[in-house]
């Protein structure tokens, strides 16, 4: 389904390109993985202290994902807790498996028994939020909306629907979003260390005690750099993974139009699509499902590990 939709979307883009009589694969792909432009946001908001707070596609996606996650999780939990006897059923089974997995396998071994109930909510929120934000990129909702608009709605060029069609669906493919999430991790590490050891002690825990002062001149900058490198790595890993898979799928689907253009016949493009592009990108989408899960897991796990390192200091 994704492949068909993306293909349609690429076709649409190709039609735009047809105005210029050429299909620009790079432009189309970038258009589908990057944020919508700041010049044409979905909702203009004032610029405060030089920061433009306008709502772009990725901001909207963040809100949609957050709203979706909140509603689904809260309603499931509420319905479960309303029972007299706590017997999980339906969606609660899955949610309980996730909660117990995150608590017992990710949080508990890293932060320890004393802090597990303090940090499990953060880790759970990281996991479900990143997972949903990643996964929603695999579902071509806006490509469907584009099809609907193209064939049925025929909205004007500056309508909200047309604005919605611009930009990628995966908010976690944007470095700014993943940097924001990594910032949360960064401060969580400091808060965890501070709560476990006190503010001053936490900073003193960064380097081992009792070394010669010469070593500290070397160690302190290294450890401070390490503090920043960890969230930076989180930022890059998640965003790059989310962007990479989409680019690969889109590039392979672009073959359809590139071949059609080179051969000068749509039949060639259709042949490439049926026998190469669609099967390969279907396989890649299957791979993407794994990547989506793994990246959400890795981000959560590393956050737990970093928090655990701040609580249980080993040198």
């Amino acid at each position: 389904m994704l492949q068909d939709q993306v293909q349609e979307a690429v076709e649409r883009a190709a039609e735009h390109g047809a105005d210029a009589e050429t299909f620009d694969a790079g432009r189309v792909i970038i258009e589908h993985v990057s944020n919508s432009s700041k010049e044409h946001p979905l909702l203009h908001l004032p610029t405060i202290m030089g920061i433009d707070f306008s709502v772009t596609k990725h901001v909207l996606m963040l809100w949609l994902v957050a709203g979706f996650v909140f509603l689904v999780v809260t309603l499931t939990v509420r319905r479960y807790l309303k029972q007299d006897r706590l017997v999980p059923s339906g969606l609660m089974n899955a949610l309980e498996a996730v909660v117990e997995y995150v608590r017992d396998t990710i949080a508990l071994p890293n932060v320890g028994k004393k802090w597990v109930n303090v940090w499990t909510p953060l880790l759970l929120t990281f996991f479900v939020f990143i997972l949903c934000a990643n996964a929603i990129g695999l579902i071509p909702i806006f490509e469907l909306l584009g099809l609907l608009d193209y064939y049925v709605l025929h909205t004007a060029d500056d309508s909200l629907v047309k604005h919605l069609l611009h930009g990628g669906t995966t908010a976690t493919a944007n470095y700014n979003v993943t940097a924001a999430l990594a910032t949360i991790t960064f401060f969580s590490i400091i808060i965890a260390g501070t709560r476990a050891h006190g503010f001053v002690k936490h900073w003193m825990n960064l380097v081992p005690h009792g070394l010669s002062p010469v070593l500290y001149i070397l160690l302190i900058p290294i450890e401070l750099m390490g503090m920043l490198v960890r969230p930076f790595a989180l930022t890059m890993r998640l965003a790059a993974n989310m962007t990479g898979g989409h680019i690969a799928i889109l590039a392979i689907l672009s073959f359809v139009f590139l071949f059609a253009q080179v051969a000068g016949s749509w039949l060639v493009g259709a042949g490439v699509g049926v026998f190469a592009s669609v099967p390969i990108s279907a396989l890649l989408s299957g791979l993407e499902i794994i990547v989506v899960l793994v990246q959400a897991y890795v981000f959560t796990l590393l956050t737990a590990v970093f928090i655990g390192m701040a609580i249980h200091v080993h040198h």
Partner: protein
Amino acid sequence: MNNPLVQPDPGLYIWAILTFLVLLTLLTKFAWGPLLKALDGRQSAIRKALDDAQQAKQELERLEQESAAIMRKARADADAVVTESRAAAERLREEMRTKARAEAEGIVKNAERQIQLETSRAVQQIRTEAVELSVQIASKIIQRNLSAEDNERLIQEALQQVQARH
């Protein structure tokens, strides 16, 4: 840096932080908090139930052993009572038999003594009468009246002779 993939976007950055923090707060308050508490509660409830079951099983085993011991003791007691009463009955029977035998022997001995007494009295009587008769016969024969003193002396002599002969 015209690549749209790496455009810094502070607005989006701050929106993402705010969105996440709001989601975190709401989920912690309405979902994770109560859920984790419920899971902990259920965990301890299950642990307690298992402990209780274990305890009940041990209690049951203990009671079974106790009742078996009681049964064993009761059976032994009953056996002892039966044995004892049987012995008592036996003893009683033996006693009664002994007593009856002694009584019977007493009666027989008494009767024998009575018979002996009667016999010896009869023999005495016969003897006295025989002496008197002999004296009468003798006096008739010798026809001589002895004085009463002689008479008595003769009688005594005769008696002594009879007794010595006897």
